[in-house]
């Protein structure tokens, strides 16, 4: 069962990912990205990360992507024009990417090739309770700091995007 779910949702994620980078209109890319996030959320669930899966749907797919779509609508971003390309990106990019993927895949295989198996239900520590416990005891400081971070981000966004008073 696990393998079936994995293969299904992994395929969906990859296809949507390819769609993100290949679509012409930003809206289509945004919607594909939502698809990626959804399938990843399912994979989280399969890995026993309930809280994170929910947070992914609510925060990422629900808030961040909506923000993206708002901005696209605001800017009236149209389909991308096919204009001049950066030759450096073409020339070096593709080999570099392939090389990067190759190296990373090789390392994964050699380090974690026999690291173990995932079965649904073999890790129960991803519940909201355990995450909350860890968050408010071991990781309290970063938690408080992120709240300041969010404050700063809000301020920054407001300052940058407001209309100039003339």
């Amino acid at each position, binding site marked *: 069962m696990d393998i079936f779910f994995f293969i299904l949702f992994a395929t969906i994620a990859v296809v949507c990912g390819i769609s993100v980078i290949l679509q012409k209109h930003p809206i289509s890319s945004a919607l594909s990205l939502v698809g990626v996030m959804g399938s990843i959320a399912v994979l989280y669930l399969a890995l026993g990360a309930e809280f994170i899966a929910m947070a992914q749907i609510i925060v990422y797919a629900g808030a961040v992507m909506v923000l993206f779509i708002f901005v696209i609508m605001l800017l009236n971003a149209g389909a991308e024009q096919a204009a001049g390309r*950066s030759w450096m990106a073409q020339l070096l990019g593709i080999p*570099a*990417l392939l090389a990067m993927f190759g190296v990373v895949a090789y390392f994964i295989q050699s380090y974690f090739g026999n690291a173990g198996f995932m079965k649904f239900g073999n890790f129960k520590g991803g519940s909201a309770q355990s995450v909350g416990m860890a968050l408010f005891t071991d990781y309290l400081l970063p938690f408080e700091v992120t709240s300041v971070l969010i404050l700063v981000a809000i301020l920054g966004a407001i300052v940058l995007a407001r209309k100039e008073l003339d």
Partner: protein
Amino acid sequence: MQNLWIIPALPFLGFLINGIFGRTLSKALVSAIAVASVVLSFGWVLKVFFTAGDLGANPISEHYFTWIRSGVFEVGWDFAVDKLTMIMLMIVTGIGSLIHIYATGYMAHEGGYYRFFAYLNLFMFFMLMLVLAANYLLLFVGWEGVGLCSYLLIGFYFLKKSATTAGNKAFIVNRVGDFGFSLAMFLIAVNFGSLSFDKVLQAAPGKPAGTLTTIALLLLVGACGKSAQIPLYVWLPDAMEGPTPVSALIHAATMVTAGVYMCTRSAPIFTHAPIAMETVAVIGLATAVFAATIGLTQYDIKKVFAYSTVSQLGYMFLGVGVGAFSAGIWHLMTHAFFKALLFLGAGSVIHACHGEQDMRHMGGLKKYAPHTCWTLAVASLAISGFPLTSGFFSKDAILGAAYTHAPWMFWVGVVTAGMTAFYVWRAFWMTFWGEYKGHGHPHESPMSMLGPLMVLAVLSAVGGWLFNVPKILENMFPVQEVEGEMTLTMISVAFGLGGIALSYYMYVVNRELPAKITSSLGWLYTLVYNKYFVDEVYDATIVSPTVTGSRVFLWQAADQGVIDGLVNGVGREARGIGGWLRRLQSGNIRSYATWVVVGAVGLLILMSLAYGMQGGGAR
């Protein structure tokens, strides 16, 4: 402690004062300082002479400080005085004083007065250092120093291109000789372990003949440069560009004799290297003849005397070469007297004719400049070897020793003596007899110039039997008997008188004869008149290739091409690489991102190499 250092220090003090402050001092003060420094130095020499006792038995030696110490090799700042040194000291300071006094009159109307006397005093300092030195290195210091002063003084009229060129020529040709001297010093240091005279000269007899010959030949190269022997004599005639007192002091009486002095000082080395001695004698004789032939044809009065100096120096080397060292020194002394007198007299003549040096525009000066006339007559008699003059004694000593060594040398030398008499008296008749052919009105010179002339005339006349040098130097160089001395003397006197008579006939009695002879000799005359084209040959074979080679190869190819190319090329390449690298800063976000990815891949690979690739993971 005789405080020998005072002797060179006084002229050096004069140089400092006149050199630094001379521009602001009056001419009288400058002259006073310059002359006084040399005269006082002469006075100190006399004082040393009279209070030192027998210098043959107890030579004076003073050590001031150790200059170089490197392992066992030591060179000290040492002065030493023995009889040979004392003779040289008297000549240098005595004649130096006379010429300084003369120069105050001669240079009275010239610009750069203080500079002239500063250089002259500096020259005296270096020459005295050379003479007083007790080791080869200190002698070399003086040697180089007088070369420098010669250059400065030849090029005294530095606005004249010919003068500066002549100064360069003198210095460069000297340098060639100095190179030989330096090599000799290296060999001496290596073989003897020391450069000081007493150590080296005492150990000389024990060394292998090959080593000594090499050292002696290299010393001879140095002497040829300084004393204007073949092949390095070419600078001396050109050195006449300098003021006449310079020609008298440096190029007649003192600097050019340094080579002879040095060879005499190194006598133990030479006497044990027979091949070198033979070379010295042959070169000296060849130079004597060669220069005498050129002197026969010249019209510039100073050039005649310049070639005469080269020729007489050849005589001195001949004397040294055949083993008659003291005869060579005797001739050095008498030559200093009469050659200085000849030059100073020539200066007086030039002064009288308002700067004219070509004898074809002189004549009849007997009635305009009588004192100059009789003093020059005495000098001419002395150089011709007229009986009982100083030149007679010294020249006959040399010729006698030459006969003992190899008779053919005697005959060549005697013929040369005849030529010497001829060209000197030719100059005399052309200058003082007949009608005045120049412009303006010639006049006699002031007393400041005539005084030294008269003193030197007396010395030229009696200096020979007054200072019997071979007797003085008896303990260093034993006097040798010459067979048939009286006959040889009469032969050489005959040649001398013949030369005088022939010149009188050709230049007083039968005035057209010289022109007829020169035209009939045709190409031979042209060859000799143009000094055998030696300068032209040197220029074509040595100078021009060197200059062209330096310009084309060293300057353009090596300096501009290689070195500048390298340096500029490095700069250019750096700029090029910088320009190329600049393209990375394209402002294009995507290309930046690409580089980030490339870097990340690189880092991944590096990390894997650093931490090793272990198979299998944890657990």
